[in-house]
């Protein structure tokens, strides 16, 4: 096995990780906001349901959730999951939305009441206050915890191998079974490079928001 061949195969696997990463963010970022609204709702039943949901999702292993999403539709409803990647994506979106919702909630609740009241006395609607006054301040405050969570996601994507998504670690262990062990360690470079880029991106975004203090 040449180095180039291994690299190409691992890269193919890593593209699966990248896809899972991107798609998870795309869906879980907005879904998390919806869930955070639920957990701050004045309607008790909605609040209770969302809190219970977040408890279950954060309280059980992501690996277990992957199994549940992949096997339960087939076992219980007789409609097996056709695509392993879709199953992985659903599990990841739900899991990460739950974590993101708590980050959003922390950010939203940290905005002083006076900001809402200032908007109110200036005749703004509730949605104008949220989108024009509060949201950008929330974004600034949640960048550090968000970066943390998003970088965790990069590495979590390799958990998808438990339902046989052919991601990078799966590819690497294939080599191991053929007696070649070094590709397994080589995979670290892919993750490191990806997280390095993300780290730079986040510090760039943080700087962008540096022009004001609240």
């Amino acid at each position, binding site marked *: 096995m040449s180095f180039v061949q291994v690299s190409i195969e691992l890269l193919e696997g890593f593209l699966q990780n990248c896809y899972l990463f991107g798609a998870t963010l795309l869906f879980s970022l907005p879904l998390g906001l919806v869930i955070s609204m639920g957990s701050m709702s004045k309607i008790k039943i909605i609040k209770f349901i969302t809190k219970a949901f977040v408890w279950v999702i954060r309280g059980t292993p992501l690996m277990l959730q992957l199994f549940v999403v992949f096997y339960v539709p087939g076992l219980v409803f007789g409609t097996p999951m056709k695509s392993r990647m879709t199953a992985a994506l659903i599990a990841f979106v739900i899991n990460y939305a739950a974590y993101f919702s708590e980050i959003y909630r922390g950010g939203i609740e940290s905005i002083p009441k006076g900001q809402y009241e200032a908007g109110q*006395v200036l005749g703004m*609607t509730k949605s104008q206050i949220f989108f024009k006054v509060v949201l950008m301040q929330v974004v600034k405050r949640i960048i550090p915890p968000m970066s943390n969570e998003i970088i965790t996601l990069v590495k979590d994507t390799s958990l998808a191998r438990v339902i046989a998504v052919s991601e990078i670690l799966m590819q690497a262990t294939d080599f191991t079974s053929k007696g070649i062990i070094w590709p397994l360690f080589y995979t670290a470079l892919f993750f490191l490079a990806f997280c390095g880029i993300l780290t730079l991106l986040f510090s760039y975004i943080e700087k962008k928001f540096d022009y004001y203090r609240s």
Partner: protein
Amino acid sequence: MSILKVENIKKSFGNIEVLKDISFTLEKGEVLSIIGSSGSGKTTLLRCLNFLESAEQGKIFVDDDLLVDFATDSSQKDSQLRQKRLNFGLVFQSFNLFPQYSILKNLTLAVQLLEDVKKNNKEKLKEIDNRAIELLKRVGLEDKVNAYPCELSGGQQQRVAIARALMLSPKILCFDEPTSALDPELTGEVLRVIRELRDGDTTMIIVTHEMNFAKNVSDKVIFMADGIIEETGNPTDLFENPQSPRLKEFLSSSLKD
């Protein structure tokens, strides 16, 4: 004809009656100061006028028209409420400027949203900007148009907050302890702006702990204690010849320092 008439406002938080039965009137161009110790209900009264709290009972008339009857209008639609509260402007103790926006944007944002000005309507936007710059001149901050709130001193921030409230041309401008969060050397510049507004015939209600200021700037003073208006009158009578024992006590303790 009075610009503002407040009748029998009652408000409780839980079992505590914060406003017991508040009534007063205000003429156009008059300045009313509300004084009293902490917990006497002055801030709550101001917040009721601005619909930040809803009272359980009472009526508010503006220009002799019934604006709100709290007993029957308790569940008002958001849109109606927004229209009504535009009669009042409010300057907060803690300024509450929007930190992420420039000073200019702090002034123009609400007007742009209220009048639903689209991004390509350059002419209208320019007009709003000019109005904002005009007001910033009035509070002496035209050089801070592009600055951000965090770059300003507390006194400057409060002057911006006053200009921001004026952008919507409220009939009655309310101040909730506008200088309480400021260092003593910064209160002067804010009080000066308020004094200039008074000379410009702005109708104002000022909740304040600055006794000398209340005495000099007001046409009318209300002394509140335990949720009622204990004494009211023109500033000279009230400060120099207080009738009720509680006002006497309050004045002697607050003028001591």
